[in-house]
């Protein structure tokens, strides 16, 4: 006897992701989910942009990491609420983990929640955490050929930050070709070129994000 089920397996995660989004929305919190390969520059990006973002919209950070608090320690002098999630080997954050982390934040006091996912260019693409914006940090040291190879990650991103552009010549990467391939995979994504260790290169991205959050809040109010 065959019984039709026709259920998307990801519904288990998506339902909690939607709950997270609703919960954040209720408090007027905009959430971004930052993904990348390990070492692409997510934490450096936060080190050099968090202070600017926090001046305009009070921030909080959820740090995803396999086992350590190393990234959280790098951000502790930024004076924003921070919750560490250790996945104990899990290759990505999921909506349940984020839901637990939200219990440890005073959502009334924050306006911008930044979730730094576990470094991985495959699995995080499938897991909605309840974010409003998914940001992929892609380092040119990974080469120019990855957008097609890791298409799901690029397809699921609203914004792609091409990082370490100052190393383009040393890495023999043509940034224009790389950006064209990103656009080929995901035509609608917004692309910025940054060198996350140089705060001056983050101005355009910071301003765009702050404006995006402002519009979100305006739409809500």
């Amino acid at each position: 006897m065959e019984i039709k089920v026709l259920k998307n397996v990801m519904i288990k995660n998506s339902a909690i992701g939607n709950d997270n989004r609703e919960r954040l929305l209720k408090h007027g919190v905009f959430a971004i989910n930052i993904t990348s390969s390990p070492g692409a520059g997510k934490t450096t990006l936060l080190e050099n942009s968090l202070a600017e973002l926090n001046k305009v919209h009070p921030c909080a950070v959820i740090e995803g990491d396999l086992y350590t608090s190393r990234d959280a320690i790098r951000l502790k002098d930024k004076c924003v609420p921070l919750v560490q999630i250790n996945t104990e080997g899990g290759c990505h954050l999921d909506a349940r983990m984020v839901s637990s982390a939200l219990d440890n934040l005073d959502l009334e006091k924050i306006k911008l929640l930044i979730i730094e996912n576990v470094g991985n260019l495959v699995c995080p693409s499938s897991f909605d955490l309840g974010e409003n914006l998914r940001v992929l940090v892609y380092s040119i040291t990974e080469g120019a050929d990855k957008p097609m190879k890791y298409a799901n990650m690029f397809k699921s991103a609203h914004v792609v930050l091409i990082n370490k552009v100052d190393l383009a010549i040393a890495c023999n990467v043509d940034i224009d070709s790389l950006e064209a391939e990103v656009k080929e995979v995901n035509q609608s994504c917004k692309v910025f070129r940054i060198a996350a260790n140089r705060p001056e290169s983050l101005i355009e991205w910071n301003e765009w994000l702050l404006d995006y959050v402002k519009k979100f809040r305006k739409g809500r109010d």
Partner: protein
Amino acid sequence: MKTGTTAPKATSKSEMMVHEAKLAKYVFELVEESIKEDATLVGRKLEKIIFDLSVPYTVYPDSFEFYFTELVKGTSYENVVLQFRESSTIMGFFINSLVFED
């Protein structure tokens, strides 16, 4: 700084858990829920689960099968056959149907 937020335990510290392990848990839960929703299925022996899977894969059947088999050891689903059907018309990983012993 707050640290040590309780997160669901994924696996032992010595191994990396790929997302197929988590999907195996989701499938287990969905199968349980589907059976509970239909009183005529309770107590019937589940023989096969048929999945539809988009191409290119976001789930690797061999990896999924490994984790699912581990997960259901010692349960009534221990010998359930997993059938994967590739589909270019869907996006994602779906439980299409459950096949029970007549």
